[in-house]
């Protein structure tokens, strides 16, 4: 089965709302229940916000691609940019210090998804987020 959705935006934070709406509906249409879809929406929002803030350093006109598809018993979302790569995988994953204001994005992402991958290669950064969902009955 091929059925996937790719959302393309510029790195403007005002696009986050658009991303949440379309990614949420796409994950549901790919078989995620309400809870899994909401978790993915939260996680994707954080991942895309991180790209805007860190990979693109606040530039609002750089391209970001978000692709949603089914991968076995998971719904998978790929977030792709060509900005500055960070050492995302080795960032702290402890619950953030109570009154620190930042530093909660990666923690949230890891709490919300079942699988989390990050790769940088040839100037492009790719984060994969995967969440287990019920097995599809029939045509899905």
């Amino acid at each position, binding site marked *: 089965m091929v059925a996937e959705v790719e959302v393309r935006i510029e790195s*403007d*934070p*005002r696009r*986050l*709302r658009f991303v*949440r709406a379309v990614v949420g509906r796409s994950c549901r249409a790919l078989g995620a229940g309400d809870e899994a879809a*909401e978790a993915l929406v*939260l996680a994707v*929002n*954080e991942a895309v*916000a991180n790209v*805007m*803030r860190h990979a693109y350093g606040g530039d609002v006109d750089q391209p970001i691609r978000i692709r949603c598809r089914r991968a076995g018993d998971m719904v998978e979302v790929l977030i792709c940019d060509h900005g500055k790569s960070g050492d995302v995988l080795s960032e702290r994953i402890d*619950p*953030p210090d*109570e*009154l*620190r*204001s*930042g530093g*909660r*994005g990666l*923690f*949230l992402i890891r*709490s*919300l998804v079942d699988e989390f991958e990050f790769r940088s290669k040839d100037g492009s950064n790719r984060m994969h987020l995967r969440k287990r969902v019920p097995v599809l009955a029939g045509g899905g």
Partner: protein
Amino acid sequence: MRVDTVHFGDVAVVRVEGDADMATSPELREAVFDVIGARAGGTVVVNLSGVPYIDSSAVATLIECLREASSGSVRFRLAGLNDGPLKVLRLTRLVDVFEVHDSEESAIRA
């Protein structure tokens, strides 16, 4: 996002409507900081019942508001949290850091 401030005696209520995310949190921050600045010794309630969604930027903003309030001796309360935002505060283990009230009324009376 829409932000309105209403006053009840020495309590200022900031009513917020719309998603609070990286794009809209600065507006929330500015409104709440303004109210805190003008209200030494009083109470500021942020009514989030019109907010279906918050992300980590909004969480960071609320923490900054809490710190700003403490340093100005202003009591800082959250009211009317919807399920989604409550879940985000739980996940980030911050529910207990805030004084959270079910409704605006109970936050004002408290």
